[in-house]
């Protein structure tokens, strides 16, 4: 059984029909990437899984139970956390405070929270050096590390990453992708939204391609890397 299953999901922003019947599934331990042009509905899909937008119709189920009626702030408790598009750090709070908030729903479990914090610092030693600095004063790369670290503090089983490479220099992109693989190898299932299709397909097991609110293609990452349409539209080849 899939860890996450989305069935015929329709999302509206007012009159804007952003998702027009998306279906996808994510298996335990997988990295699944969502590709697509600007405005295709990638972020909306992640926002829906986190409960920030609620479906008009369709169903999102996680470990067999529906998430449709669960408010956003409860969804983290089910083991789903997100590093959102644009990072959305708490800029006037310190790195440490941002990390603590990532673990907000399980702060009573002090030992385990400190354990997670240590693991985040092991993964991103840079954050340890900067732990008392305000998040808004970090460099772009450091901010992305913090966004991912903050999401990891929830000790998620399912991690949603929305464009983690956005605005980073190529060398940093490489290192962030390596970290994502490392997180996955530690047993965290990942849904990765990316503009950087080539790198994402190399990292992921499977992929879905979104086009104006619908899924136009899906398959194993290797298949899609070879697919004619994908090469033309997303890998910049002729």
């Amino acid at each position, binding site marked *: 059984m899939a860890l996450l299953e989305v069935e015929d999901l329709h999302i509206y922003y007012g009159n804007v029909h952003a998702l027009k019947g998306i279906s996808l599934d994510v298996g335990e331990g997988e990295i699944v990437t969502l590709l697509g042009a600007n405005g295709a509905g990638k972020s909306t899909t992640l926002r829906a899984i*986190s*409960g*920030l937008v609620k479906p008009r119709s369709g169903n999102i189920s996680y470990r067999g139970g529906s998430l449709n009626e669960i*408010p*956003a*702030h*409860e969804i*983290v*408790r089910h083991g789903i*956390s*997100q590093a*959102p598009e644009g990072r*959305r*750090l*708490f*800029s*006037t*709070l310190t790195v440490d*405070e941002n990390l*603590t*908030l*990532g673990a*907000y*729903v399980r*702060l009573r479990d002090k030992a385990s929270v400190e354990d997670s914090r240590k693991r985040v610092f092991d993964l991103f030693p840079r954050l340890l050096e900067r732990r008392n600095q305000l998040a808004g004063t970090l460099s772009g790369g450091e901010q992305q590390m913090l966004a991912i670290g*903050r*999401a990891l503090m*929830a000790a998620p089983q399912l991690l949603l990453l929305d464009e983690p490479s956005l605005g980073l220099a190529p060398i940093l992109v490489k290192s962030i992708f390596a970290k994502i693989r490392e997180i996955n190898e530690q047993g965290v299932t990942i849904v990765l939204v990316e503009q950087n299709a080539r790198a994402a397909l190399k990292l992921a097991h499977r992929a879905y391609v979104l086009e104006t609110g619908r899924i136009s293609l899906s398959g194993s990452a290797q298949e899609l890397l070879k697919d004619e349409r994908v090469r033309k539209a997303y890998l910049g080849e002729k």
Partner: protein
Amino acid sequence: MEQLLQQLVNGITVGSVYALVALGYTMVYGILRLINFAHGEMFMLGSYFALTLIVSTRVGVLQLVPNVLLGLLLVFLFSMGLVSTVGVVVERVAYRPLRRSTRLAPIVSALGASLFIQNAVMLTYGTQYQVFPEGLLPTTVWRVFGVEVTLMRVIVLAISLGLMAALYAFVQKTPLGTAIRATALDHDAARLMGIDVDRIILTVFLIGPALGAAGGIMVGLYYRQINFTMGWTYGLKAFTAAIMGGIGNIPGAMVGGLLLGILETLGAGYISTGWKDAFAFVILIAILILRPTGLLGERVAEKT
């Protein structure tokens, strides 16, 4: 020199009350980008509740309560609790239904709530001034460096500075306080952390009115005369203090309140007593023109 010192002490005393009330404006604005124009009424209600409690339980007169200070402490706690309840009701009735509407609607609603509370108090107590009983506290006066310090003044300062320190520690050091600061910055990001934003709003509408009420009680005890319109004048001054410190900025509200109290007292002392109440508005207008983000804050400019 002594006169200046005396005025500074006076200014800090009244300023600390402005600061307490300003915190209510600034915290609500921080979370909801809403100016709670009914907040001045929380201040007024605190004063009226306290007066009623003092008169009906005869604190300090019949010695029903063994100790006046203990009695006053209970009066503070009860009145603050009652006003918190009113604050939460106002949020539910006047603001929550309008949360997703235009920015103008909640302002109109706030003014409506304000008028409603004022009229309710006027109908209950009448339009005349109400007077706190005399001689609740011994009129002890200390002289420090030629400055007269009354027991009442010491109590006002101790309570308001104590409450501010407690609030500051709460907001800076506790998980709930950190969640309040995070929610002020980004509601959706806060939700992703598992923060229940409605609970944060509720918390802010418990704390703000309680602090405002404490201010109102102290003004009642200090000046002894209260009126159902007092929420307007003090509310506007506290609002000025919040703007001075940069609305949304908690330490800013504290600094703004103290500064306004000092400026106002100095202005009354050295320029003209008659214009005392006008200074606040001159300052408010000057700040809005010259430095709309306030002295400490950039909150107004930061995403609206």
